[in-house]
């Protein structure tokens, strides 16, 4: 039902670099805070608690 959009390979690479750079910029003490803020912003942009739950479960795999 929800439109599934996917990143282009250059787009994915861009996200990859941006996230790594932001984590380095925040530093080890603030990394978790940064990532949780980001997750909340993404959840709000997604606008779908059920899909967020699916993504959370995917992220919990193979930790």
């Amino acid at each position, binding site marked *: 039902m929800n439109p599934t959009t996917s990143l282009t390979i250059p787009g994915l690479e861009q996200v990859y670099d941006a996230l790594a750079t932001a984590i380095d910029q925040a530093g080890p003490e603030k990394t*978790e*805070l940064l990532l*949780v*803020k980001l*997750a*909340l*912003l993404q959840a*709000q942009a997604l606008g779908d608690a059920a899909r967020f739950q699916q993504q959370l479960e995917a992220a919990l795999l193979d930790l």
Partner: protein
Amino acid sequence: MHTPHAEPRRSIYYTYRVFDAWLPSMHPDAQSRQAPVVVVGAGPIGLVAALELAQQGVRCVLLESERQVSEGSRAIVFTRRSMEILQQVGVADRISQNGLPWRFGNSMYKGQRVFRMEAPHDPDDRFFPMINLQQQYLEEYLADAAMAHPLIDVRWGNRVADVQQTEHGAQLTVDTPEGPYSLAADWVVAADGARSGIRSLLGLKLEGNSYEGRFVIADIRIDLPLPTERLAFFDPDWNPGNTVLMHREPHGIWRIDYQLPADETPEQALAPESLKSRIDAQLALIGHPGLPWEMDWCSVYSARALTLPDYVHGRVLFTGDAAHMLPIFGVRGANTGWQDAQALSWRLALVAQGVASPALLASYSQERVGAAREIIDEAGKSTRFMTPPTRGFRLLRDAVLSLSLTQPFVGPLYHWRTSRPHEYTHSTLNATGDDNLLFKSGPANGAPPQNVRLGPDDFLLDHLGHHIHLLWFGGHANAVPADIQAEVARARAAGLPVRVVAVGFAAQQASPNCGMNGFAVGGANGGVEAGASPAVAGADLVLPDANGQMRQRYGVPAHGAAYLLRPDQHVCARWMSLDGHRLAAALRAFTPLPTHSSQTA
């Protein structure tokens, strides 16, 4: 020998009155009389329970171990529903005159207001969403009313030392400054607070979480130029990771609550230098550094979420903090307790008077244990933001704090749910064969009533005392139908205090279409009491509802509809079209058949 404090408690704004202890030697006749009801504890809940019982004709003895009202301001925020309950027992005016009403709350982080709570104030409501007043005043008003009531025997300085259940009642041993005496009761209402002695004597255990963070609670006198609004400060520099709350009270007093670091003891927290440095730091945070202040009272409390699984134990009935301990965020202590007292007292009155079997009390426990569990669940959502229980919850809370400075979408997470009246949606008292589901609006079965403004300083609930009320929307009819009148008469003959309110009546002598119709409306009173002018045969009270506001708020589309309200004003039946049979069916719920385990009174 029980020796309560004889010296008045100290306060910089409240003058304590010490009452004479009630001594058995001074009342030689009292011991031989079995009391229909003994209420244990003259706190806010016990006082309301005793007043409600007495106003419904039940004689009661009210035992209070102390000889004066409570120490410190304690419960200071009272909700609209509480005021409606307090109006029923006759003290709402005094509270309104002396309290500070409010409806806005502010959540602050890093000097910025990140969320503003605005509680709605409907023109049909008499009372504000919240009003602040120190508990001593509230207890004083209630105690004045109790001591003035001929059916209430207030006994200061009387402590319950033992309770034994008997087949038809309970036997209490009551300790006094001259030693113990014996007191027999048909029923005992335990309203003796969070450390309930009755609960301990019966060996009952509360269920749930016993610890969710500690707070210092301090009352200071200070001249702060701030309005009456709730202030919550998250993660302030002087108390990192924790929360600070501020409330304005009458008489220039401010309440400051602050959370303690997990490793700090209450003794450390209450050391004068610790209090001073923290209060000074909070004053600096709000932009008033160095402002002089004086301490009135301080204490430490733990946020807890516990309830007894059943509030009825033989002849002993639990209410208020004796029955449950609730997290105080969201003003859930006294405000919940009064709903308990109100839900209990009308049932106990019917049982004590032999109108209903004790089986009626089971629905008290079902409704109020359900309410406590719902409150614990809701409060948990506030608590996990205010005092995060795990590392994960703390991370999320910190992320929300950080985001809230630029992202308004997280603001509502700051809104901790405040006490609201429980809806008894699944009550066994709710009618099953009525038209509840056909109504598109108005209070549903189990819900508290919807107040309606009838005129200047005149509201629907002003007229609804401790009766079972039938609100009959009869249009222009000048008589309640005979079959309904017959059922009302039958119920009254069986002892049920049924009162009929005819709504939407236009007098014969006036045109129904001329707006405010022509029949006698007495002064500021939009209703016409029977006896003065019984304009509708079979109605005890007539509410003209000239502008149709009551019909609208109760979702009544056509004449002939009706609502049935319990003595605690909650709806228990509503019909698009009422007849005698349907009314009789709904009224039967008030007199359930005795169960095997219960005795008739």
